[in-house]
């Protein structure tokens, strides 16, 4: 008997058919991967299963009974727990209170029984082998630890079905292995897992079954062993992605040089970026890569040392100086650092022109070049009056890149530019970065996806404890070599 059966589910939003007659089944004790590009309908399906959205047609049978979910609480009660991509934790409360949010154990006086709360939490965390103190405030945890707490919170309800939405997006490799061990444990207990991820390696490592969605339509369900990486990509994208051959455009001239550049986060940074070079930055989450980017960009301005652009010293004490000198930064977190929630594509692109001296207003010319970039980067909509917030992650990232390119960067620092975006958009970003390098610009690429760094970069700096732990040329670099440097000797 199947644990979950979905029959002919449909759901549309104004202008989009998000799900079109989708059916699928999950067996008990199965890890079922759900694949598809952003906008394929995975999130809509998850929202329906968690009670956030209601389907127009079709039915859901769970554990032998037809399921009609009114709200998320209903889903929890039925035995479905979901771990969302965007964390649902409260930073100011303890781990234990987050795990038992809204259902803390109480004493017979109706007051919260903290002793029991901590005891039950630590039992749960121990069982999952998550090394976190239940009394510590969530705000002090790393992104990866938060993700683990989030999973513990979902499992505290003893669900029959656990849905994980991009659980490894902000997690280090070590935590990924812990997560996979937990999933294995669940599978052994006969619980089912629906696993959503853009990371194909993980899918092939963990999944028993793979279902592919594209534009709201079911492409099919296959045992994982019947698919290969290439065939899965083809199913998701619907086209063959051209993998460009690597070609170095690294020139002789040094474009950007930091000499003993320091601020409160980074001590004495020395690095050189050549013209046409793609310089990778690898490291564990929290190693200090973003801090280096912010130092170079003037967001956390330097207190000591020198920054030279084309051998000329430049003073970068605010992003404004950086931008006026042609140094641009694509932030790591799209939603909190790049997105203007009220703004249209055009208005967002216009923010490229807000710095420094008031630029002369050839608005029409600007509009034309903005529209050209939107087209060139293959943003899903040609309508530049559309709100950026309504676009998928990949398309948003393209808009933000277009904004930077409008400023004619000499140096582009891209912090996790492909984080959480779908594979088609990823390839567009890769091709763009290569093209920029070919035009003689310098690129610093911060990424947690090692294959990405290995395909794109001329050189890779490995960061550990806010310092450059090593510099690997393209020929020397390999995943194991990078990890060795990133994790240190022990």
């Amino acid at each position, binding site marked *: 008997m199947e644990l979950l059966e979905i029959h002919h589910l449909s759901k549309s939003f104004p202008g989009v058919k998000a799900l079109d007659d989708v059916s699928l089944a999950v067996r008990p004790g199965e890890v079922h991967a759900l694949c598809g590009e952003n906008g394929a309908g995975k999130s*809509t399906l998850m929202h329906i299963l968690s009670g956030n*959205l209601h389907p127009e047609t079709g039915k859901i049978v769970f554990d032998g009974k037809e399921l009609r979910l009114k709200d998320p609480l209903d889903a929890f009660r039925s035995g479905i727990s979901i771990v969302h991509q965007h964390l649902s934790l409260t930073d100011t409360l303890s781990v234990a209170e987050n795990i038992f949010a809204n259902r803390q154990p109480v004493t017979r006086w109706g007051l919260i029984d903290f002793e029991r709360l901590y005891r039950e939490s630590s039992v749960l965390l121990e069982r999952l082998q998550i090394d976190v103190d239940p009394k510590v405030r969530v705000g002090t945890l790393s992104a990866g630890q938060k993700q683990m707490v989030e999973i513990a919170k979902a499992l505290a309800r003893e669900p029959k079905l656990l849905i994980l939405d991009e659980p490894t997006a902000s997690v280090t490799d070590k935590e990924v292995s812990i997560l996979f061990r937990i999933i294995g444990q669940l599978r052994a207990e006969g619980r089912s897992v629906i696993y959503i991820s853009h990371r194909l390696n993980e899918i092939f490592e963990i999944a028993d079954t793979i279902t592919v969605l594209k534009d709201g339509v079911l492409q099919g369900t296959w045992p994982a062993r019947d698919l290969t990486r290439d065939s899965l990509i083809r199913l998701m994208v619907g086209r063959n992605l051209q993998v460009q051959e690597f070609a170095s455009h690294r020139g002789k001239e040094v474009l950007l040089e930091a000499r003993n550049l320091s601020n409160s986060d980074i001590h004495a940074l020395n690095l050189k970026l050549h013209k046409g070079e793609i310089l990778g930055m690898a490291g564990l989450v929290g190693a200090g890569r973003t801090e280096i980017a912010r130092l170079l960009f003037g967001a956390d301005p330097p207190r000591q040392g020198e920054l030279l652009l084309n051998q000329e010293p430049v003073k970068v004490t605010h992003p404004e100086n950086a931008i*006026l000198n042609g140094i641009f930064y694509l932030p790591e977190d799209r939603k909190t650092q790049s*997105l*203007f929630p009220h703004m249209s594509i055009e208005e967002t692109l216009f*923010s490229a022109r*807000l*710095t420094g001296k008031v*630029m002369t207003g050839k608005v029409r010319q600007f509009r034309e070049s903005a529209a050209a970039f939107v087209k060139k980067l293959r943003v899903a909509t040609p309508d530049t009056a559309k709100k950026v917030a309504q676009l998928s992650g990949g398309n948003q990232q393209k808009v933000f890149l277009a904004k930077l390119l409008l400023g004619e960067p000499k140096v582009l620092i891209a912090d996790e530019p492909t984080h959480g975006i779908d594979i088609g958009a990823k390839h567009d970003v890769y091709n763009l970065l290569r093209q920029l390098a070919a035009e003689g610009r310098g690129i610093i690429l911060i990424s947690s996806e090692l294959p990405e760094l290995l395909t794109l970069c001329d050189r890779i700096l490995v960061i550990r404890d806010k310092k450059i732990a090593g510099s690997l040329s393209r020929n020397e670099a390999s995943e194991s070599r990078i990890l060795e440097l990133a994790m240190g000797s022990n």
Partner: protein
Amino acid sequence: MRKILEDRIYSLSALLVVVVAVAGLVYPDTFLTADNFRQLLLNLSIDAIVAVGMMILLIAGVFDLSVGSILAFAGCLTAHLMFFYQVPVFWAVGAGLIASGLLGFLNGYLIAYKGINAMIQTLAMMGIARGLALMVSGAAIQNLPYWFGAIGQSRLLGVQMPVWYMLLIVGVLTFLMSKTVFFRRYYYIGSNEVAAALSGIRVKRMKMIAFIISALLAGIAGILLTSRLGAALPTMGRGLELRVITAVILGGASLSGGTGRIPGALLGALFMGIVANIMVIARVSGYWQDIIVGLILILTLWTDQSLKKNYKL
């Protein structure tokens, strides 16, 4: 239809037309007269000038509770200098404006650069400026110079000057906020401060400037009110801050920033002025006005939220 409901400038204008039409039908000889409109425009001009500054702040995602007190302080200081020290009108007005700008600078500097919460800082400034106003004025100051009175009591085309100043200020700032890069930055700051800073905008400096502009406009309003009344009262502008924030939110701003347009500030103030006027004409007691404005505010925001809901997820 949906478009009209969604853009507050249109929806509020439509509501205004309906209100004016109904009031005009019910009170044809008292409401729909040129005199009455001249009077109600004059009465709301002070609020509208302050509302323009508040609109800029709310677009940038902050607000200022001290505008009412700064208004009183600017008016009282100007009157004090003229009355007790015989300072010429021009310099006294200049001093009043500079003083209000300084208080705005203090607000802006402490909020933007020192990270003091805007509500707490401006709440403190509300008390400080009110105290300063009382200090320089004692009881009301009267018998101000003739030319000072002329600033706010002269008429152009039969309409008293504060109305023209209001229109000028609304016009200039509407132009600046929609057409210049400098002022356009406030929309980005209000929409996402972090992203704005990473786009190279000097967020702190811009925020400080917004507080200075708002305080200056409050100062202008205070001097105009003093001139119009022919007296400086330390109690001027009591409760003004909340009234103005209400007007600005009615006019399309939101407390979370990034939205709103300058003409909305005028429309909001106009709406509240007309409601107040109708209350007077209908001989309805003062507190009903507060109740009605409160209900309309809830109603507009409710409509907004229900329209938005369709876009969720």
